[in-house]
């Protein structure tokens, strides 16, 4: 039973990490046109849970990407500088969409592990019931 519980705890921590990642993707996409906004990324850390002995994942520090922001030539824009160039954020929507897709796939993988552990435990208990 202990191993099954550890599997479920690890899967739950994976789901939390992926939802955090998706939240950052949402922030990036929403602020794609905000001038001066820097893309937020997160790296995951391996965390050893002493109580259950399971290796879980936790979101690490949120870092801001230092890439050059997108610059557009638009003289009529209220934020254009003297050369007519508007500086927006450094977010590429295609990369964000791919990141969101990846977060969803990882989330589904963790969810199926959680469900599988639950089904295995139920199957084991069914041996005892008639």
């Amino acid at each position, binding site marked *: 039973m202990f191993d099954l519980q550890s599997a*479920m705890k690890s899967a*739950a921590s994976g*789901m*939390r990490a992926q*939802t955090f990642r998706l939240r950052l993707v949402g922030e990036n996409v929403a602020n794609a046109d905000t001038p001066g906004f820097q893309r937020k990324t997160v790296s995951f850390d391996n965390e050893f849970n002493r109580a259950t002995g399971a290796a879980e994942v936790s979101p690490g520090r949120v870092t801001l990407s230092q890439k050059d922001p997108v610059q557009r030539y638009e003289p009529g824009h209220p934020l254009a500088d003297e050369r007519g160039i508007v500086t927006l954020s450094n977010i590429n929507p295609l990369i964000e969409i791919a990141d969101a897709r990846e977060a969803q796939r990882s989330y589904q993988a963790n969810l199926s592990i959680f469900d599988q552990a*639950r089904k295995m*435990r*139920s199957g084991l*208990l069914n041996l*005892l*019931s008639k």
Partner: protein
Amino acid sequence: MQVDPSTANQLFGAALKATAPTEPADGQGFADALEQALSEMRATVESGERAAADAMAGDGDLQSVVEALTATEMALETATVVRDRVVEAYQEIMRMPV
């Protein structure tokens, strides 16, 4: 066949010891284990109820609720199965003709 009364006494004494309840060697008999399991189950059910109340008030995040309710459901299932088995064993023993 001749049975010596002292031998009979010894054999009776040995048989009597076998029917006496044995003390659990490591200090945790079946009753203690059952009690511990029940208290763990109560803690699990309490945390599940708290998580469900938080979710209905709009506070808790959905994943904690699902985790707590799953743990509650599994603990309840285990307790039900163990209870059925214990009751069945008890009834089986009561049915034995004396």
